[in-house]
């Protein structure tokens, strides 16, 4: 898995401050194409802040975050607005599930295709043929992805009242709807049962293999991270500690010290 690959996301000396607090401190790491990378660290280590910088929720970070397009061109993400990240090929899920409760699962997934719609509000008001056709095209695509996720049978149900495992899947389906080359997963296994975690593991592999998507994830479930990731990056107080294969990371003394505390 460690053969030299093209990079897809590159953080270079990224620092993010909130007032006096340094949430991310001079952090650098790279995610390669078709790679599953885990970002670990104790609570408050600045993991989600890293995600928020990469997706331009925060644009006042120092340093450099680059994304590489399919053609191999490097894009400085800072030059992009937060809404331009998805069309570029990066999609993400959220720690607190951000789905529209009183909309069907299919419609929620369709929200992911939003930026692909070429018809504007005027065509929607008059429901022109083009608008109708476009709706059909993306609906078909959404159903395909739901089938891939094994939840196609639920597509007409409301999101409200669905079990946690399903909600997580809908979020991932919505992220895939954006046709990304990199998916950023914020604690995908949190709150899942063991069975659901196993299922998620297989799903993540399939997303990478069948759709050629790279994955960057934050997770506290160490078993899950160590199983699934090609490489793991450990940080503490926003600072880089080490980045290596799961096996080496587990044995890394500083990681043990920082992450597992003195008892390890």
């Amino acid at each position, binding site marked *: 898995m460690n053969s030299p690959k093209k990079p897809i996301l590159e953080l270079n000396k990224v620092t993010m401050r909130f007032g006096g607090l340094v949430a991310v401190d001079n952090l650098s790491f790279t995610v390669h194409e078709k790679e599953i990378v885990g970002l670990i660290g104790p609570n408050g280590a600045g993991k989600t802040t890293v995600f928020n910088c990469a997706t331009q929720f925060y644009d006042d970070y120092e340093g450099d975050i680059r994304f590489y397009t399919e053609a191999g061109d490097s894009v400085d993400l800072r030059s992009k607005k937060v809404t331009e*990240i*998805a069309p570029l090929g990066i999609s993400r899920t959220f720690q607190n599930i951000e789905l529209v409760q009183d909309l069907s699962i299919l419609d929620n997934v369709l*929200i*992911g295709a*939003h*930026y692909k*719609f070429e018809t*504007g*509000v005027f065509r929607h008001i008059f429901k022109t043929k083009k608008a109708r056709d476009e709706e059909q095209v993306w609906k078909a695509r959404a159903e395909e992805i739901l089938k891939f996720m094994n939840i196609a049978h639920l597509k007409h149900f409301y999101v409200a009242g669905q079990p946690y495992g399903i909600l997580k899947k809908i979020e991932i389906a919505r992220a895939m709807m*954006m046709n990304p080359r990199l998916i950023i997963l914020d604690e995908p296994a949190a709150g899942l049962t063991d069975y659901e975690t196993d299922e998620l593991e297989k799903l993540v592999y399939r997303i990478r293999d069948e759709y050629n998507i790279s994955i960057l994830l934050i997770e506290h479930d160490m078993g899950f991270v160590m199983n699934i990731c090609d490489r793991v990056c450990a940080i503490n107080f926003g600072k880089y500690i080490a980045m290596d294969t799961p096996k080496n990371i587990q044995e890394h003394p500083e990681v043990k010290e920082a992450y597992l505390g003195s008892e390890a």
Partner: protein
Amino acid sequence: MKKCMECMKTRWNRFVALLKRHPPLQYVIFGGMLAIMGLGPYFGIIPVSTAMFGALITVMIWTVAALGINLLLGYGGLISLATAGFMGVGALGVGIFMTEYGWPFELAALMTLLISGALGLLIGIFSLKVSGIYLAIGTLFVGEILRRIFTNVPIFGGERINIGEITFLGRFTIDRNLPFQDFATGASQYERYWLYLILTVLMVLTMIVVHNIVKSSTGRAFMAMSRSENAAQSMGISIIKYRLIAFIVATMLATLGGIMYAIYFQNAPTEAWTLILSLMIIGAVVVGGLKSIFGTFLGAVIIHLVPNLYLRPLFGDVRSLFTGVLIIVVILFYPRGVVFVVTDLKKLWGKLKKRLQGRKETAHDEQS
């Protein structure tokens, strides 16, 4: 006999399938029903008195304005307290363009809509920077500014602008002052009914437009935005764009409501566009059902027609009390709105049926 029931059932199913394929049809049928009801005062159809006729007029005006608020509040999660102000813009705008400038009705209405659209754009731009309660109070500012312009500035003629008879499409002149029946001859005069029909058509068109918006990717973007702006942005949804659209559509629909007022009453008062009216319209949306188009109409019926027609004769002027209590009770106990009572009852009936069947089956099992 049974065979006939069967064929009725298949016909009904076919009809439901047709509605599902062409959802706007349901609004057209609804409009048709309203059009028939409007004939009440002419043929003495019992439930539709002249009072009911008048109440339905107001209900339709409110529904159009409230649909804009529903789009804004129900789908977009934004609030505006300037609804009444923009209704005033509609009625008074048409009035000024027609009486001061002598424009034909259609041009006056179009111009008024464009102006209110521009004002909506301004509020939208304002909302990009200002959010939450600051935004709500910001729209209250707009409503107050408009109200003070209406009442203070001399061009609005003090109390009201009298428009008088309106000529539609340059050919059809309708004077609403003619009563339903000619006093001398007793012959029916259909002037008011034609105006009623125009209002019905405008309301049905508004319903279809709002339906099309909310069932499109624009509508989904509104809902994503109201759930979480940050998440919506990460999906490439531009908050700027959709806030602007929401405010522009809402103000234009409020204005259309005002124009409908001018069409039917053929005058435009200056003092009617108060905060209380805005609140009543928000009340109609909340009570009837957020995110429901028929619910909005139902809300207008509950908040305007029911207290005016049925409660006032019995208990005196309880309109405000009734509306206020209803708003609070509905939010506390039925936050989705009264229109969802039907869906919930259906669900409950399904559950009951299942439970009854289950009981039967277990009883059956025990027996065997």
